[in-house]
């Protein structure tokens, strides 16, 4: 009789059942889609981080941030040319070219010996160090220098006013020229460090990887994307910091959509030497012995190395920029709040309709009590109706949610991600050729285009259904409480 009565009642109140079920269905579908997207964003973030920090990196140790100009540096690469630099062609045109290999001037480096300190911390399974550099090449072509008709001589390549040539060029200027600035990121690494760090997330696609025997040698391995864009291959040479390097290999990220951590990889000692940075590294990558030791290792590192910055995966994740960061923010804040609000509204609707239904069924409930139904039996009937309504809504919501997740999977939106710039060149210093400031570009940044997925687990579906049932139970509890309070005599008097 229980199920017969329940089924008949819900069939008899189709409109109410439809509204309640629809509300819950939308809420449950949102919960599923938001949870799946959150999981997808987490996967994407992990992928993005993996391409930069490698597989298995739990913590990073890096130098403290520095203000531009701190320590006497003027920030940005500086290109100084002597009077006799460059090659001059027969027509008097002078070609100038210079490369600079520099560390990130906005972040300090750390002593290489820090790696030993880190490795000695309890709970550290593996550690490796790398030196992040940016190679910037200036190429310029200057026309024939003005005749010495003035008593000024150029100093440091400063522009001198030119006589009016009648071509409408106006007074002043040096007669024109063309300049270009090119850059690529360089990572100095220890060849043997493949367990953790950037090299743990790459695979050789051409040639070979760096080897221990390459220490001190001018050899380089290129990122596959960079090699393609620069039209370079194994066997070619590449100018790094004014020195020719032989390209011995090409690597790509184990994540198909991402670039590796840098454009070019060279031996660490060579990188330290060429950049003039000394026996330093930019980052130490740390792998904890187990995931539950990460916090303890982080604390121990911060205590042992007070002058550095120790970052965990979640700290690093917050550095991810690009549309991935926007997607993460959108899903975790807006998406979560939206699904909470919609769920609350759906449950409130269910409660209101249940209570309203009880009011309209006052005589019916009074009759049931009069013919001998116990309070518990009546409450159980009312609660059962609410739970079944909720289950109907939950089931429809699961179907809608699955459809939404399938749609996202079919569309496969691509989102970009980039870690916060470690080689950001802002307005440069003065001097040189009138200052190189103003690019504002984030040079040497590793970016990744990642396909956003929406992985679904059985757990999320079960959670969604449980939420629906919980919503039904809450509505049923309110309705049942209302029904239980009805005295049969009052209920029957109410319609007399």
């Amino acid at each position: 009789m229980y199920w017969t009565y329940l089924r008949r009642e819900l069939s008899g109140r189709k409109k109410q059942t439809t509204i309640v079920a629809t509300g819950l269905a939308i809420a449950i579908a949102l919960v599923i889609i938001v949870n799946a997207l959150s999981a997808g964003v987490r996967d994407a973030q992990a992928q993005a981080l993996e391409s930069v920090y490698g597989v298995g990196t739990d913590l990073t140790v890096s130098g403290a941030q520095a203000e531009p100009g701190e320590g006497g540096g003027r920030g940005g690469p500086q290109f100084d040319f002597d009077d006799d630099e460059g090659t001059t062609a027969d027509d008097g045109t002078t070609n100038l070219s210079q490369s600079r290999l520099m560390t990130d001037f906005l972040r300090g480096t750390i002593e290489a010996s820090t790696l030993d300190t880190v490795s000695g911390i309890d709970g550290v399974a593996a550690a490796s160090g790398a030196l992040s550099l940016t190679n910037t090449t200036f190429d310029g072509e200057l026309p024939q220098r003005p005749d010495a008709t003035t008593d000024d001589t150029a100093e440091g390549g400063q522009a001198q006013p030119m006589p009016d040539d009648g071509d409408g060029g106006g007074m002043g200027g040096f007669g024109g020229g063309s300049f270009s600035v090119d850059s690529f990121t360089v990572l100095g690494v220890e060849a043997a460090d493949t367990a953790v760090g950037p090299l743990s997330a790459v695979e050789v696609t051409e040639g070979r990887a760096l080897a221990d025997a390459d220490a001190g040698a001018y050899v380089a391995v290129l990122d596959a994307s960079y090699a393609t864009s620069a039209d370079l291959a194994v066997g070619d040479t590449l100018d790094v910091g004014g020195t020719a390097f032989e390209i011995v290999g090409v690597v790509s990220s184990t994540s198909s959509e991402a670039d590796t951590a840098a454009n070019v990889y060279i031996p660490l000692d060579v990188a330290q030497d060429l950049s003039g940075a000394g026996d330093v590294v930019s980052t130490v990558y740390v792998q904890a012995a187990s995931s539950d030791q990460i916090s303890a290792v982080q604390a121990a590192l911060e205590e042992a190395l007070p002058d550095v910055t120790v970052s965990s995966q979640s700290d690093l994740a917050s550095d991810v920029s690009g549309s991935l960061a926007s997607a993460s923010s959108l899903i975790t804040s807006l998406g979560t709040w939206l699904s909470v609000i919609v769920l609350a509204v759906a449950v409130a609707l269910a409660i209101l309709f249940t209570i309203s239904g009880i009011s309209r069924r006052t005589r019916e409930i009074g009759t049931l009590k009069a013919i001998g139904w116990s309070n518990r039996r009546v409450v159980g009937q009312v609660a059962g109706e609410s739970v079944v309504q909720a289950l109907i809504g939950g089931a429809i919501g699961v179907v809608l949610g699955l459809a939404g997740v399938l749609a996202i999977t079919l569309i496969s939106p691509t989102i970009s991600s980039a870690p916060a710039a470690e080689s950001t060149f802002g307005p440069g210093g003065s001097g040189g050729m009138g200052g190189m400031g103003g690019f504002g570009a984030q040079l040497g940044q590793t970016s990744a285009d990642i396909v956003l997925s929406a992985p679904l687990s059985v757990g999320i579906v079960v959670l969604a259904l449980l939420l629906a049932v919980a919503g039904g139970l809450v509505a049923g509890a309110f309705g049942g409480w209302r029904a239980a309070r009805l005295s049969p005599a009052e209920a029957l008097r109410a319609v007399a």
Partner: protein
Amino acid sequence: MTIIEQSPAEPAATPDVPAYRLAGVTKTYSQKGRVVQALKGVDLEIAPGEFVTIQGPTGGGKSTLLQLLGALDTPTAGHVMIGDTDLAQASATDLEHVRAREIGFVFQAFNLIPTLTAAENVDMGLEPLGLGSAERAARVTDALERVGLAERADHRPGELSGGQQQRVAIARAIAKRPRVLLADEPTGNLDESMRDDILAVLEQLNADGLTLIVVTHDSAVARRAGRRLRLDKGTVRDITR
């Protein structure tokens, strides 16, 4: 209407024990800030197998008395004995038990569940008894046959006439084989011919030994009773002639 089968009712309580014994029953309640005394010191005994009608003006306390007899409410003072159970002292669970097993109730507006068939409505009355499905089905069939509606078992209330609906309500009340059947204006919503049908059913049940207490305005109904009571301004007097 033809009563297809007549089966004897369950034996009533021994003749020495009244079906009901009311002693000093008073019922007051608040209504819109006023205190209303619906019953004032009612003393009453109803023997097993009696057919009693209760008449009186509107607001005289008839429905209140019926609700006390039906264990739907408890008196403010006094005792309402049904067999050996004092409804005035009973707990909520005990009252539920009495309503489920001892008392059958028939309402003026039939109070059937509109989404259930006639047989299912009758079955609703057996729900609290915890009977097996075979026993329940047998009782449902028997009750519908006793009121002459066996062939309408699968019809919903909307497909039945007023008289037929009231017969289903009576079947629901008697399926549990109660000690007493209480009816609140059972013919109030029926025309003359349907009223007679219902009265015939009630009389037959009474003839089978069921104690019958009917609240009614209808003198035609009252004339059929073995005992007539009048309830006016909260007090009862016997007007049987």
